């Protein structure tokens, strides 16, 4: 680039103005990005998943905008129809859960008595009582049973974020190429080809990873939900959906996903023995490890265990349970980006 001193006064002024404007835009973006982070991330993930059907419709002759609109309309339609049919059952399960929550709490308290008696030998009694009070308070604030479930869903103000995420998805599907071209046009000539290659590689790798991970989670949700329904475990739909989402978190996910079902058996809510549920969940986990995961996600984005644990801790601190669930796929994307970035810097002899 031409040094600032060699430029004419007008050109220098314009260039300084340009950099001021660019800095302002970056700061404004960072300021607003915090609020828009969830819809932006969800929109990006959705567009990565939906780009093949949108490309298919575009190939069949629809304009990009129309293809994006059609894909989103079909998706929302399918979700809407699914909810329409599932709503009575979901509502029944939810009402049943609320109705029985006090008796579950009583059962948990009873179970805790045994645990606390054992722990009294190891930990000072005062600390134990404090921990117990905090635990009960977390689940029963203001006589609202299982308050933390409300908290879980409040993290994600659904209607507002769904709308924003849909808009982001639409624009990324319809104008992703133009947005990328505009961004690349800002890169100086020396790094232009490298930037283009980097964006392409990262996008391809992360799209595959996200699509694979979503398919894997869906397969797990269906398998676990169906297995629990057959085993006559209550709330099988919710537990299956939760286990499917939790499965995106390596190591801890399958354990956390299985806890609610086993806990319901231990509390006597479900008639099935806890070991039977545990055995079925372990079987599904093995099926996933040996067949489903290699077919859907593969091993392209292996994340080191330490990074997973740190990611979950940071995600949990920033966004609660949803933060934990989103942290690992984001780590996968970040890892892919860093690997490609490093390889590009070496390839272009910048490193």
């Amino acid at each position: 680039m031409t040094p600032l001193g060699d430029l004419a006064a007008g050109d220098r002024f314009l260039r300084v103005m340009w950099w001021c404007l660019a800095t302002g835009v970056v700061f404004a973006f960072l300021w607003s990005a915090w609020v828009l982070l969830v819809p932006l991330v969800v929109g990006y993930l959705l567009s990565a998943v939906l780009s093949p059907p949108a490309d298919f419709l575009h190939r069949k002759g629809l304009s990009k905008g129309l293809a994006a609109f059609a894909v989103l309309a079909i998706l929302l339609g399918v979700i809407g129809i699914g909810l329409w049919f599932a709503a009575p059952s979901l509502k029944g399960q939810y009402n049943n859960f609320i109705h029985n929550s006090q008796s579950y709490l009583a059962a948990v308290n009873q179970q805790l008595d045994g645990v606390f008696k054992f722990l009294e030998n190891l930990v000072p009694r005062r600390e134990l009582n404090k921990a117990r009070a905090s635990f009960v308070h977390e689940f029963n604030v203001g006589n609202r049973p299982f308050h933390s479930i409300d908290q879980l869903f409040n993290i994600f103000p659904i209607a507002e974020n769904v709308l924003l995420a849909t808009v982001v998805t639409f624009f990324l599907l319809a104008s992703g190429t133009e947005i990328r071209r505009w961004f690349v046009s800002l890169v100086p000539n020396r790094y232009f080809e490298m930037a283009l290659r980097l964006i392409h590689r990262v996008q391809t790798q992360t799209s595959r990873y996200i699509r694979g991970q979503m398919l894997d989670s869906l397969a797990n949700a269906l398998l676990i939900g169906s297995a629990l329904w057959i085993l006559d475990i209550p709330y099988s739909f919710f537990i299956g959906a939760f286990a499917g989402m939790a499965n995106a978190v390596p190591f801890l996910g399958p354990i956390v996903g299985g806890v609610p079902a086993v806990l319901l058996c231990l509390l006597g809510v479900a008639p099935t023995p806890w070991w039977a549920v545990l055995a079925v969940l372990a079987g599904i986990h093995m099926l996933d490890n040996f067949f489903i995961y290699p077919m859907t996600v593969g091993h392209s984005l292996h994340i080191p265990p330490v990074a997973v644990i740190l990611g979950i801790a940071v995600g949990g601190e920033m966004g609660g349970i949803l933060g934990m669930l989103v942290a690992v796929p984001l780590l996968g994307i970040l890892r892919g980006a860093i690997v490609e970035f490093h390889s590009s810097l070496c390839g272009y002899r910048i490193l």
Partner: protein
Amino acid sequence: MSESPLWANLFHRLDGEEESLREWLSSHPLLKGIGGRDIRHIAALLHRRQYESGEVIFRQGDIGSGFFLVRSGSVRLRMEDPRKGNVSLAILPEGSIVGELSIFDNSPRSATAIALVPTILYGLFEGDLDRLQATRPGLAANLLRNLGTMLALRLKVTNERLQELEPSDPSTLADI
């Protein structure tokens, strides 16, 4: 006001440039037999870059991921040989293709390309070609066939030049 590459790359596509690009592309051998609507589609995939005189476009050994069409100006191809130093290979005028081999094998650039005069290039890269193959496979096949024809023609010319050389000193031929 002098126009630097930064400004040129940011604020291009003015004064009906898209239209003139499409006209130019329709007469280019790379898009031979490709219709107007498809040319518009390809034009939308190309990346316009402007280089100052003497500016390096890519360096020998860099990872290559696409090729450039010389829209205006000219490009010198230079090879850095450890024994002979810098060897000038060719000067490519308007309409030429630069760096086309890397679109096929992602190999490192075999030569350094330098803009001889203020030069405008249009680049087509791996990602855009992949997208073209996904969305319009027929068009991508036509484009690649034309590129193959151009490469075959270039190879033919090189072979003819080699035949013109007297093989009095076999090492000369081997060097070439």
